[in-house]
């Protein structure tokens, strides 16, 4: 029995050491990446919905740039006026909807991934397949993804789509801010093709200044709010519109970062592995004490 107890202590000490090492080695994992600095030069797109004519060329260009079935570019504008409120899906990374088809030429809103500054999907992804790149793009790594769809649960804008119909190699599909194109110095495909310049690509900072300039210059034309400036901690895509887009196009979201309290809880539970190790020690202690008590009683 004494042999056993010595073993117990020995092993316990070994576990303690291992845990301490783990703690020392992995603080960056436990602490998480969302607290990293965002680049000041990160890019964004300013969407001026009052300018958009709903031609759907951006949808076509997007599909073409991403090697998706694009069809004829003449057929896109007619989808806009049938009143359907389409969503980005596995077949289209971006769509343009007219919000209220009963009012002629009312705001038309292009929808795609907002490329949050603090993306919930990045925080949620079990294998770190989603990354907020330095240039602002939130990209997805096919080779890592296990297809758990937790990013879809997490996304406040309900953007990521999934290829449910594929038995093998189904993918999460969402706008990648044309990461491959912008790396080469090209504009995102949608921005490049937009005939009326409803989309403006630039650093997020400059775009915010420009957005506010437009509002102050034309207060009658614009609703006084740049959607995406503060929502869910800021998004790379910013929207100007004639009317308030909240509740019509976008859900009502606070200004807290998209992962919300989830990360704080997660880090609270695993702050340098202290709580688990403490619990382990506590339970070990209880076990040892009750064992002794048991033995003493048994000895009688």
């Amino acid at each position, binding site marked *: 029995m004494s042999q056993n107890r010595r073993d117990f202590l020995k092993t316990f000490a070994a576990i303690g050491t291992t845990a301490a090492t783990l703690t020392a080695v992995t603080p960056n994992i436990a602490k998480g990446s969302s607290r990293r600095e965002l680049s000041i030069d990160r890019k964004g797109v300013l969407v001026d919905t009052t300018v958009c004519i709903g031609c759907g060329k951006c949808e076509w260009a997007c599909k073409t740039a991403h090697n998706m079935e694009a069809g004829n570019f003449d057929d896109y504008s007619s989808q806009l006026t049938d009143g359907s409120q389409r969503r980005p899906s596995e077949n289209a990374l971006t769509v343009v909807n007219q919000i209220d088809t009963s009012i002629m030429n009312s705001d038309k809103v292009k929808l795609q991934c907002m490329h949050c500054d603090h993306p919930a999907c990045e925080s949620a992804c079990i294998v770190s397949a989603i990354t907020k790149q330095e240039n602002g793009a939130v990209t997805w790594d096919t080779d890592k993804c296990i297809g758990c769809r937790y990013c879809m649960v997490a996304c406040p804008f309900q953007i990521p789509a999934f290829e449910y119909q594929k038995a093998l190699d189904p993918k999460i599909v969402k706008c990648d801010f044309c990461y491959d194109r912008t790396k080469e110095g090209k504009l995102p495909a949608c921005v490049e093709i937009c005939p009326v310049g409803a989309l403006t690509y630039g650093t997020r900072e400059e775009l915010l200044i420009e957005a506010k300039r437009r509002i102050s210059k034309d207060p009658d034309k614009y609703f006084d709010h740049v959607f995406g400036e503060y929502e869910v901690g800021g998004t790379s895509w910013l929207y100007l519109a004639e009317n308030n887009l909240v509740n019509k196009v976008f859900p009502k979201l606070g200004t807290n970062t998209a*992962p919300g309290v989830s990360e704080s809880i*997660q880090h609270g*539970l695993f702050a340098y592995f202290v709580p688990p190790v403490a619990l382990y020690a506590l339970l070990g202690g209880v076990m040892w004490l009750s064992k002794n008590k048991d033995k003493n009683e048994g000895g009688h």
Partner: protein
Amino acid sequence: MEHAFKPEQMTKKYFTPWVIVLSAIALNGLGFLAMRFFFGIGSVTNLNNQFPWGIWIGLDVAAGVALAAGGFTTAALGHIMHRDKYETIIRPALLTAMLGYTFVAMGVFVDIGRWYYIWHPLVMWNGNSALFEVGICVMIYVSVLYIEFLPIVTERFIGKVNLPGFLKKFNLLVDGLLRKLDRGLEKTMFIFIIAGVVLSCLHQSSLGTLMIIAGPKMHPLWQTPVLPLLFLLSAFSVGFPMVIMESISASKSFGLKPELDVLSSLAKFVAPLLGIYLAFKIGDMFIRETFVYLAEFNSTTIMFTLEVVVGVIIPLRMFLSAAVRNSTTGLYIASLLVIFGIVMNRFNNFITAYNPPYAVESYFPSFGEISVTLGFVAMEILIYRLFVKIFPIISLPIKNAGLKAKYAIRGGLK
């Protein structure tokens, strides 16, 4: 009326009419599973871009993990607190937990789109992700459970190794290996037992953190920052009712007398645990003032009321009554109600509460999804039945034996 107990293999024959019904259900589930792997998730489920998670996550995984809580709660009670009285129920609880978690892993395996990458979380880490935490903990805990189960395997085969045919000559070697394994396990088992409890506490709560990131997509009746705590507390409170339910079911099924005195005293723990859970749930509701939503009358509030009233308050009252605790039927019904409550809670958290902003239609599980879920449950029961026939799991009363030696579990601290 102290009896001595010893775990024995069950001798009753395997096939009964119920077993055949369960086999049919399991086969049906397997059929749809095959469809899922050949034609994709979309061909079997009602999942879409609005509702990425259905009952395979909400029930198979979330509720499955909760219901397997019996494993760690009884381990904590029996091994860590050394309440020797409850040793008889540790093995069945362990087996349930082991099978439960195996099927949780299976649930995850069939639900994820790229199942061949299921090992990725082991090498690609994301400390921010609650799911990563759940995944890692569950993976480790499943291994721990298998290790905890190993002594039962060694106990079964030591001295009885009898390999067929030409393998006969290895009998001695295998026997020796088993003995070595047994000795090694005996010395280190306490590590795994404590680890099992710690891991359970961690991932039971992290399972609650999972849906917090859904933020405003989740109905405020359920969405709260204390979700992890509620999940942990509810897991605590469902552990014992699950063990009680199983024990009674197994007794009935194998024609044994239920070990009522053990179960009754086990049931004494349930009311306080349920009470704490209820207090936190109601307290949270009042602090966040979400009770205003109960003024509406719709499917969401009905589900919430069912969950709390039928699943928590009624069984709480039942477990407080000594009369109920001392009757097999009372215990059985009360335990079933607690289980119902927790299953409802997990279902509500993952499915009822999830209201995506652009949903065009609400989610209802398809026939295929239900078939697979039921199939998993049926398979679990069938394997449980098979295991108790192969391994000494369920304790039977024996006579003329010293109390201590007889119910000692290999691997427990000696």
